């Protein structure tokens, strides 16, 4: 069942000499409980695509449908509400609020949704237990490691049970060990919680955790591969292969 449908999406920045076409004509469909990686070189348009889906940027043309709503046409207030209720975010640099404890940081999406306090408390405890970060509850972001920070950021992304989780290079600031841990967490989100995840990465190993990988080049989707029943290491090799071809083309 389709959750996200993108038709003829394009984005142009600047005018005259500064004219840049970041996305040309992108069509994409993501099903519920899908786990999709977007790969591509710098400037290929992957971050632009993520920004358009997260409604923090407006497309020049095209449509983005999520649950029968064309989010490309939403005004600011409706876009705020959409992000608040339907999306979860994981960033490369974690972006936890230094002034709040880990528990408070995780609870922020529910606080913004103005959920009942008892509900927030229960849900926060539940998510922290799930990610094994209960012991960090009273610590501040500057008191914990990068891996722990990203776990907390994952908890914040999942706590409001969003329709779609958008992750922008979630392992970009982590060592390989922590990166694999975080991907384990995201796989668990996808498999156990049936969360739909759209992730931007440049690392084939990280992409191999996903069910599908989309390759972007010069603002166009040039390839899409499915993991199907392949083991992760096999899928990894396939991604590397495709990526190498892409590099050669470049």
């Amino acid at each position, binding site marked *: 069942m389709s959750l996200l449908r993108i038709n003829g999406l394009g984005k142009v920045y600047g005018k005259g000499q500064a004219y840049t076409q970041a996305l040309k004509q992108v069509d994409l469909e993501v099903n519920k409980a899908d786990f999709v990686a977007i790969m591509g070189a710098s400037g290929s348009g992957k971050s632009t695509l993520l920004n358009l889906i997260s409604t923090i940027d*407006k497309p020049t043309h095209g449509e983005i449908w999520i649950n029968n709503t064309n989010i490309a046409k939403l005004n600011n207030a409706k876009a705020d509400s959409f992000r608040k209720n339907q999306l979860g975010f994981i960033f490369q640099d974690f972006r936890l*609020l230094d002034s*709040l404890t880990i*528990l408070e940081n995780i609870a922020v999406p529910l606080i*913004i949704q103005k959920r009942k306090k008892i509900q927030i408390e229960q849900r926060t405890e539940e998510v922290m237990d799930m990610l094994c970060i209960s012991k960090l509850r009273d610590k501040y972001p*500057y008191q914990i490691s990068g891996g722990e920070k990203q776990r907390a950021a994952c908890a914040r992304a999942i706590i409001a049970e969003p329709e779609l989780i958008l992750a922008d290079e979630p392992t970009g600031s982590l060592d390989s060990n922590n990166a694999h841990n975080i991907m384990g967490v995201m796989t668990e989100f996808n498999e156990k919680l049936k969360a739909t995840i759209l992730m931007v990465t440049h690392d084939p190993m990280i992409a191999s955790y996903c069910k599908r990988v989309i390759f972007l080049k010069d603002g166009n989707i040039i390839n899409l591969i499915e993991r199907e029943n392949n083991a992760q290491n096999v899928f990894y090799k396939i991604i590397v292969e495709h990526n190498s071809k892409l590099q050669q083309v470049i």
Partner: protein
Amino acid sequence: MFGTNRHNVFIVIKENIIYFVTLIICIALFYGFVSLGDIKNPLVQGNLEYDFEMYAPMIRYCIYAVSISIFILISYVNSHMFKEKLKEISILITLGMKRSKIAIWYSKDMLSISALSFVIGILFGIGCSYAVNAVISLITYGRVISNNFFYLYSFIETIVFFIIMYGGMTAINIIKVMHKKPLELLNNNKIPDSKKVFPFWKLIECLLLMGSYSFIGYNLKVYFSIGRNYGGNIPSYESNKFQFAIFVAIIIAIYLTIKIVNYLLIWIKNYKFVKYDMSVLVIGKLSHRMKSVTRNMLLVSIVLTLALCGFSLIPLMAEFSNEYMEHRMVFDINVPFNYDNIEDIHDIPDIDYGFVRNILTKANIEIENECELEEYFIWDSDFSGPSVRANRYDMPRLAMGITDYNQLRIMAGLEPINLDFDSFLFHVKDDIDLAQFEEALNGGTHSLNVAGTLLRQNTSCFFVTENLGDYIYNTNTDSFLVFPDEVCEKLSIAKKGYFANTVEKTPYAVCKNADLEIQNAFEENYTYLYDRYGNNGNQVIDFIGPIRFRSIEENDISFMAIITKALGMYIGIIFMLICMAMVSIKNIIECNNSIEDYRVLRQIGMSEKQLKRINMKENLFFYLLPYAVSIANFCIIQNTFIMRFGNRANTYFHGNQYLNGIIVPVIIVSVILVIYIGTMQIINFNKIKNSLDNVLE
């Protein structure tokens, strides 16, 4: 970046815009203020109507206060601007650049900014000097006195002050660059991970806070209850001891109040109703910021308290001295004598004031009525010379004859009092706490055995409190007894003064000359006093005086009152600007630092309006916390003032003016605060809007 485009001073200014603007404002205010006291200033250069002797030291003290506050503001801004550069500096050091080269670059940058802002600041200062001089001359003389375009001495003072400031601050920053490790420099800009404060220590701090306030209260009570007559001087050693202790206690109390507010914020944040509410975003940020701003808040609170005092107490005290002058100067001419320095009772002269009368006649001062007031020791044992007096401030209550007393009453426009045979009455100043006298005299009859005569209390009128001026009482006393003349004749004379009313108001300059002539004539007539007691160590002793002419007092006091009010308001404005600038700079910097947080919150669904509201609440707290603390401390100081002068204030102002003197300035300060908050908030809102627009478009 250091080393790129260094020649372009405008880039350097853009990078340090807050420092640049602060310097210009400070230089303009400093020059404008110093020019007020410049020896070439027409205001100071003397005038036939006024004597500027009292004005000059006052200006000087104000200059010290203004200099210190400007120093604090500039060093605060400078240290912030330096912190902004620390990361860049430490990266350059890590990459191997010579520290000395970085230091030279930094100093050059600061020098170019300082020099340019000095030139602009002086230009604004000339305008500021014109404005301040015009306002003061207008309210003093009723017309604008032409002002000099340029004051060389003020310019030199300003340049010296700012060179010292530049040198000092640059030296400190260079030392940091030269000696600190790159890692230390990098960490210098981070909010410290504060050490955990144990509950026991928090409890100690709470107790210490309560102790500080109790200490302040107790000391104020003791200070104002030591049974002295504060119409006279409080011994300086006693006063300094209490005032220093209270001052230190206030500083400690403010510091601890701010710390405990932080504990309260953390405590509140841990409660469920806050923890899972939107308010956690505000309170979390507040407690986070409070860790690093305790000293800053302390400073702002102190400066704001001084601003409040400048705005309200100084003009009030000026008004107070106006009213007090009306009260103490009942007679047009007062020539009091005092025996404070005479060791032998037989040396107290029975002065013949004929020489005063001659001088006044020669000066064409026509006397309407006069009194040579003789006052006596009730008992000879009341006399004690300075060498045997236990406390040099303890002086006895004196007595006077009914004829002199009634003459004074007539001169003051009061009805004479009829004194029964062998009776006495008790006269007390009307601006002291009368309740204690009434309580002591209440019930029963009172009698005195004086010089072999038993005196009973006067039946028609015994306890009199009408105002006869301040100069008829013995030093440090506020009452005297009135005896029948024949009883007084048997007593030893303590002092004899001359009091007179003139037919017309005497010109200021004529009074000044007469004052000098009376002093000289007395010295010539009573040389033995000066020979025996005229020199006490390094201190030259006067036996008559201070001689007071109503014309001189009226002019001096009203002039001083105007100057004091103007200076008080100016000091208040400068202090207010300084602390508002400190809070505003901090709030702008914090807003910049929070932009990333706002972007994240915006991305996860918060509206721009909600984010602006968070920012506003956060900023309001940092404006209102020092404001509330300073209002509390101002109330303590205000209360001190009431305890010290309460009876006088009630007598002079009959309630209303006194109340207006406090409430109106507090309202003015609050309005300035609101304008400041509004302006700064608009700046912050624009900044937030622009940064969020960049995210969304």
